């Protein structure tokens, strides 16, 4: 392909990304309207919105972390393991040190410490995966397939597979607090993280580096980027976000367990791909990912309102939607490629 064709293909990709956002918005509205028509008395009521806002932040935050790693051309399949391990570290600490029946003002410093430990665990998990990928050059898929097993395995090992409950009441009280009596803390965290990540990707040098590495790692390194350090930091961010998700799950369930949120891994991949993150790296936006999260949540909440639909159908739907989106994107990109070639010649 000539340079001119390359450049114009680049433009097409850019435009098709914006088309992608419009398409996602269309899908979102479609699912919303469909569910509203099918279940007018349950779907999209205030109570329903409130319950949805409690559900999606935990996997949404993990999906944002995974999206960052996918933009660099990698993937982080270890997000759920990291989340659970972080939560278990916090839970073990709280159960171990907080005397039962302690007054709230005495518990607060412990809570702060527990959260700090969880976040540190997330960072460490991310750094571990990042080192394996950047230093040891293990393909991200295999490295994080391994870390997912390892982190979950350690979590099972230290807890003997049992849930860690009997946390101080204050933790879930704070974790489930609502702003203005409507917006759960987890939702607020999600909004803050989505905005911050969006800013990071579109307005900072680091964000631009992620796209450069994802587009062509070798070129990025010749352009003077320290790929290893950038990749390491990306996985650390993913680990940190996973630990936030773990803390949210711990507040919602009022316990921590090694096997919480097992289906979230696939769901996060699905969200990222649906949201327009190219699995080969180099493109994607947080806005798209956020829309994908909302589409999935509407779909999932809507399905919940049909008693006859077994939970296992969700696996079918997630897997099916993932493949359909991939196929759709394939034909779409072929069409725009052909258009670009026609224009260039």
């Amino acid at each position, binding site marked *: 392909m000539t340079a001119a064709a390359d450049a114009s293909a680049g433009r097409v990709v850019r435009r098709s990304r914006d088309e992608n956002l419009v398409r996602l918005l269309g899908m979102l509205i479609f699912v919303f309207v469909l569910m509203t028509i099918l279940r007018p008395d349950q779907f999209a009521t205030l109570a329903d919105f409130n319950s949805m806002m409690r559900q999606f932040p935990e996997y949404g935050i993990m999906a944002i972390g995974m999206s960052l790693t996918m933009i660099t051309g990698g993937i982080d399949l270890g997000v759920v393991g990291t989340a659970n391990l972080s939560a278990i570290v916090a839970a073990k600490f709280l159960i171990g040190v907080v005397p039962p029946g302690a007054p709230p003002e005495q518990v607060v410093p412990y809570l702060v410490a527990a959260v700090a430990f969880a976040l540190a665990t997330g960072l460490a998990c991310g750094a571990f995966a990042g080192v394996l990928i950047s230093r040891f050059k293990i393909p991200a898929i295999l490295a994080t397939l391994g870390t997912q097993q390892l982190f979950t395995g350690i979590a099972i090992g230290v807890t*003997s597979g049992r849930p860690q409950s009997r946390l101080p009441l204050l933790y879930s009280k704070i974790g489930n607090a609502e702003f203005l009596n409507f917006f759960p803390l987890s939702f607020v965290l999600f909004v803050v993280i989505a905005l911050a990540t969006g800013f990071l990707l579109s307005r900072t040098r680091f964000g631009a580096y992620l796209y450069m590495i994802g587009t062509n790692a070798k070129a990025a390194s010749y352009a003077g980027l320290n790929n290893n350090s950038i990749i390491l930091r990306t996985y650390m961010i993913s680990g940190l976000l996973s630990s936030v998700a773990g803390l949210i799950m711990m507040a919602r369930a009022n316990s921590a367990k090694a096997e919480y949120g097992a289906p979230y891994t696939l769901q996060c991949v699905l969200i990222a791909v649906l949201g327009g993150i190219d699995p080969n790296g180099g493109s994607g936006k947080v806005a798209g990912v956020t829309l994908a999260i909302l589409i999935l949540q509407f779909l999932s909440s809507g399905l919940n309102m049909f008693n006859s639909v077994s939970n296992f159908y969700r696996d079918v739907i997630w897997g099916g939607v993932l493949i359909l989106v991939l196929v759709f994107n*394939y034909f779409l990109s072929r069409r725009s490629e052909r258009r670009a070639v026609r224009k260039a010649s």
Partner: protein
Amino acid sequence: MFAPRRLLGRSEPWVFAAIVALAVLIQARSGQFFTGNNLVDLARALVVPALFSVGCMMVIVSGGIDVSFTAIASLAMYVTDKILLAQGYDGNVLLAYAMSAGLGLLMGALNGVLIAFLRLPTLIVTLGTASLYTGLMFGTFAASASDVPPAIAAHGKQILFTAANPDSGLTSTMPVHALILVGVLVLAFLLLRYTMLGRGIYAIGGDEAAAERAGFNVRAIKMVLYCFVGVLAGVTGIVRISMIAYADPSTMLGMELTVIAAVVLGGVRVTGGVGTLTGTILGVALMTILANSLILMGIPTYWSRAFTGAVIIIGTGVTARQTGLKRLARTLAGPAKEAQA
């Protein structure tokens, strides 16, 4: 086409040495390793993962990765089992194998179309299809552990020989399924060694663009490969349920990671192009012995998953490092050597 022997021969001796060391260690600690029944038990435990590993190895050699083969095996065997039960089938077990293999072929073909013709990333495709197939099994077919038709149950009781432990009096039987494994291994060996298809699998894994220009039909090769993996998974599903004598839909799920770990541990290069069946089987043997010895050595089963993860990381780390070193050596040796390699 094949890399020189010194490159290929690098992992297998180490894995073999690790197996020997482990065997001696377990023998020293429990005195139970080199007993007839333990060895036969190990061989018995090896059959199913080894069958899976053959397909898994071929996919990794071609530069892809497949996490859906256990889902394919589970759905194929479950549907076959249910249909045969509903029909009150009382004939030969071969029909069960044929049905399950056929269903496996269909499911593998879906992977193949998505991967070969649409060129979609293999991990994401197979994660998606794995979710689809398990969802269908538990959702549509409301799967739960079920009986097996008499033909399959009888097939499970066919044994080659029995080994007894003179001290404890425990006996273990070598199932006839070991012959299926031998047959599959011979077939895979001939396929990889003497056919253009096999050469093509190595060639695509080494460099897809180069393979295409050298005249390999990359699409056809990938399509056949994923169909083959599907057929093999279907057969393995029946092997599994006949050996345990009931059709448990979740008995194989999750095994895919251990199998991938074993294959990678056996020296199959994760970026494609390099790997041997010998290494693969040694890798599976090592993982099987490790898994069994956790029990023999009294390590709590809670830690087995952490252990799998550590093995995947160490195994892939070592092979990735070797690849890096080799590439470095080739670069240092200059372009002439590179062309040879």
